């Protein structure tokens, strides 16, 4: 299973845990599985069409990817807000 890491405030919406092991063939699938386990995070990373929100960054093994990026069980997925979304 891939490892997902979350930062605040996403971590608080996923049971307070920063690290989650989840199964899925691609980024979208593991993030949907995260929503199934922790409903309060629904809509925060993926929009209702399953797309990663424009101001959320998802990195897999150091590379920024979108929801369709394939995953292997050894992959580490970091989810964090981008630096562009927080306008003054």
């Amino acid at each position, binding site marked *: 299973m891939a490892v997902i890491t979350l930062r605040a405030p996403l971590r608080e919406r996923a049971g307070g845990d920063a690290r989650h092991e989840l199964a899925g063939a691609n980024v979208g699938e593991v993030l949907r599985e995260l929503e199934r386990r922790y409903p309060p995070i*629904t809509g*925060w990373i993926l929009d209702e069409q399953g797309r990663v*929100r424009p101001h*959320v960054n998802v990195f897999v093994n150091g590379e920024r990817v979108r929801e369709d990026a394939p995953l292997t069980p050894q992959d580490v997925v970091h989810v964090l807000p981008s630096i562009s979304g927080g306008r003054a």
Partner: protein
Amino acid sequence: MTQLLVGTKKGLFVLDGDPAAGEPFALVTRAFPGDVVEFALRDPRIGRYFASVTSGFFGPRLMYTDDLAAEWQQASGPAFPEGSETSVERIWVVKPGEGEGVLYAGVDPAALFESTDSGASWTLNEALWKEHQAGDWQPGFGGLALHSICPWPGDPDRLAVGISAAGVWITEDRGQTWRTGYPGLVPGYLPEEAREGTNILCVHNMHRAPLRPERLFLQFHGSVYRSDDAGSSWIDVAAGLPSGFGFPLVLDPGDPDAAYVIPLTAAEDRVTPQGSVRVYETRDGGAGWIEHGDGLPQREAYLTVLRQAFDREGEGPDMGLYFGATSGDVFGSADAGARWFTVHERLAPVTSVRVA
């Protein structure tokens, strides 16, 4: 006691005060710090608070609570069905409807959602969405927004909505079919030869007079209108105002001839005219307008008041009026606009004001 829900670019501010007793408003609580609270209201039927919250990172969501001291819950929706290729950008307004547990929500991209469980979950109005998809609707400067929802008191089948910039839409069968209410609206921002038959109609705000439901007032992009036939056609009533441009609109529910607007200079200069903050009242259906500025800043005050940032409490001569500006200032009147006072200064830019 009066409670104000002030949505801002930096969270929700809840202010309590009693202007009739001379007790100034004070900040009770702040929620959603750092996020934009587009709109907040309390459904008086069940005492439930709603807040439309948009995170610059994590998108829009509708939150609700029955107790301001308790944790807010996230509603299931409004959200477009999976596979529609569309996602909600912003929740502009939530409005209690006719019928137990019925509420409506208007969003960007322009669509109407209905809840029948007191706001816990939401369903897209498919018929209006089909009109949207077929109609090549154009966005206004603030997006393609369904921001005004006007139920018909006592009749759940009848509803009118205002859309920027796709005009007025009316249903008489509880949202199964929709028709437009365009005649009389003049889009002065289009070339004259392009105005006939256009659907690029930039409604800024619309409210229904509850004692005479076939009457509505409408703040347009460049004028103010009144309808006496349930929104089917419109009469220009802006003569006497310093400008036809503006966003906020409030009606006196006890007087179907009464409306209040806060004009801004023009589309190109969206501030209070001549650096003077003034509210305009009509008591004769828009035939004439009364200017109110007593207690409001009258010198070097260039404020912008957004469409949801004006509300009322009660009716008649003792009606409370409250509005906030993007300067972060909030003003109030306890005598239907005759005299004004400062409710609070230096909050974050105000997006909405509602009396709880």
